[in-house]
């Protein structure tokens, strides 16, 4: 067997083998979606569109499901999951926008302006950071950042002003987004740095030889040419932020609450809980059929959004092909 692998394969056989493997993967993905969708069906059937709405306290609705029987009544499925969906979108969007701005500047600095000695240290460190398990970030968040925010940033006056609605304890939007940014930025930096290095040297030199300064040459030529990689980095970062469960469960405050921007500065301290964190927290009470269907429904939403993300990334890259940028 091994000997056969070592021999040069005819192209046709290699093509057929790889094609078969790819098809198997594709079939598995489709099966997974079908499976999750079928399990989630009751939750959508009984709620209709109000599943995506914001009726009642979502935490109470979920708690109630835990105690429903093996043959749940239609009413047992009642949920308005908007606060969880909103929390997912909010944390992801804020983290990715903030992380992208930071990653772009950092990558440009590393590639164009950092002295070589610094570059030799920074690049491996960034790669290392990209590989740190998220639970460690969660731990640092809960041990360091949360007390810091609670003691120094949230005044007791602010706590009292909202005490009948929600309690502010330091866990919440701010810490969740900050740690998400720390978590996803290294990956984006690593991808963008590689892409900037891969930009043909001639383009950059061509721009410089026309009397454009290094900063502008970087933005107008190198970063432009690296746009497909930047899009890929954003898609990957979104996927990681969307799917982050443990860390967010630790530092988000874990409340089915929708932070409201009109609360002013209080907004950033308000607790919340995204879908993925909800799934890990409720996975142990999945014996109740109503609960099970609801958790599968959350999973289907996440699955669907990563598909949409990949598709959006693919579509966004298409116009760039035209001008000869490698996609």
């Amino acid at each position: 067997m091994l000997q056969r692998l070592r021999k040069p394969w005819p192209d046709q056989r290699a093509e057929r083998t790889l094609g078969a493997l790819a098809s198997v993967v594709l079939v598995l993905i489709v099966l997974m979606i079908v499976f999750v969708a079928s399990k989630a069906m009751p939750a959508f059937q009984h709620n209709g569109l109000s599943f995506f709405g914001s009726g009642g306290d979502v935490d109470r609705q979920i708690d109630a499901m835990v105690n429903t029987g093996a043959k749940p009544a239609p009413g047992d499925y009642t949920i308005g999951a908007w606060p969880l969906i909103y929390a997912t979108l909010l944390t992801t969007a804020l983290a990715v926008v903030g992380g992208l701005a930071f990653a772009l500047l950092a990558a440009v600095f590393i590639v164009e302006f950092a002295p070589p000695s610094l570059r030799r240290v920074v690049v491996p460190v960034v790669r290392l950071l990209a590989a740190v398990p998220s639970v460690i970030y969660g731990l640092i968040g809960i041990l360091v950042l949360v007390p810091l925010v609670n003691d120094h940033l949230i005044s007791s006056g602010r706590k009292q002003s909202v005490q009948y609605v929600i309690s502010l304890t330091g866990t919440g939007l701010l810490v969740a987004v900050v740690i998400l940014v720390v978590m996803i930025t290294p990956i984006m930096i690593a991808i963008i740095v590689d892409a900037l290095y891969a930009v043909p040297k001639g383009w950059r030199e061509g721009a410089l030889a026309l009397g454009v300064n290094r900063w502008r040459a970087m933005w107008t030529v190198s970063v432009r040419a690296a746009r497909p990689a930047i899009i890929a980095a954003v898609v990957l970062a979104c996927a990681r932020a969307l799917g982050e469960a443990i860390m967010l469960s630790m530092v988000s405050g874990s409340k089915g609450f929708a932070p409201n921007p009109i609360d002013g500065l209080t907004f950033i301290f308000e607790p919340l809980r995204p879908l993925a964190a909800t799934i890990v927290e409720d996975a142990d009470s999945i014996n109740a059929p109503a609960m099970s269907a609801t958790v599968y429904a959350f999973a289907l939403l996440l699955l669907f959004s990563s598909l949409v993300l990949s598709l959006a990334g693919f579509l966004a890259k298409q116009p760039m092909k035209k001008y000869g940028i490698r996609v």
Partner: protein
Amino acid sequence: MIGNEETHDVERLLPPPIKRIVVDEQLQPTIVQPPVADPVAATGPSAGAVRAGARAHRRGTPGPERMTLDGLSVSYGTKRAVNEVSLPIRQGEVLALIGPSGCGKTTLLRTLNRLTELTPTARREGRILLDGQDVDELEVTALRRRVSMVFQQPNPFPMSIFDNVAYALREQAMKRPGKAAVEPQVIDALRRAGLYDEVKDDLSRPALRLSGGQQQRLCIARALAVRPEVLLMDEPCSALDPRSTAVIEELIQELRSELAIVIVTHNLQQAYRVGDHVAFMYLGDLVEYGRTEQVFAAPRAQRTRDYVGGAFG
């Protein structure tokens, strides 16, 4: 621009089909062709026989000095790539830089607009003057707009033809000018580079879909758009076929009246056809500098004789 009436010109510039392999001092084979199809020239390189056709445009008197290199040396780390070179670069003339591979031609050229500063190990000594002013005293971006460069490999940006030519114009402006504001300059630059007639139907086409020769002319147009005073060309034809080469050589003839041009070439016939002056470099040293006829027909140094002799003897 190649009008029909000029077609015979192009053909004259095309290399004749006879090729010989000449081995230079560094044992690098160079494919060379006799300079002119003319049988008189092929028999002997006497100064009298050498002229006719292609070099008839030559001016008698040298133009004013635009750039001056004064004891210019460049080293990469401990390796000296250019050694104490002093040269004038004159307005309205083409200076052809020749020499075996690795002798420092590219390095010399890139020093003129301070592109060598991008190489961390490169160090420069000696002075370079542009209109009497030391280039180190100029803002590097201002210098590079006055002394523009065309590279060996055509390097159009991954944008449309129009955006390529407009690039430097837009970057130069304080506020990004709209399409209409730069259009006249873009079209003018494309005309001067002899590309306009071939691309005028669709300037929004991606530049990278052009042929190699068209891409190189686009790069020339891009450099011309900001109206440089000196144009540096590093083997601009080495990636091109004979016909595109002829088109670019003709373009150089047309541009020589408005600019000072320095061209690096491995093709001795090309140096002969386009150069007013020729500088021969060897291992970083400037061995010979003189009028083209003199360098090719009656070189002073033995090294030059060995190098150019093979091509004409």
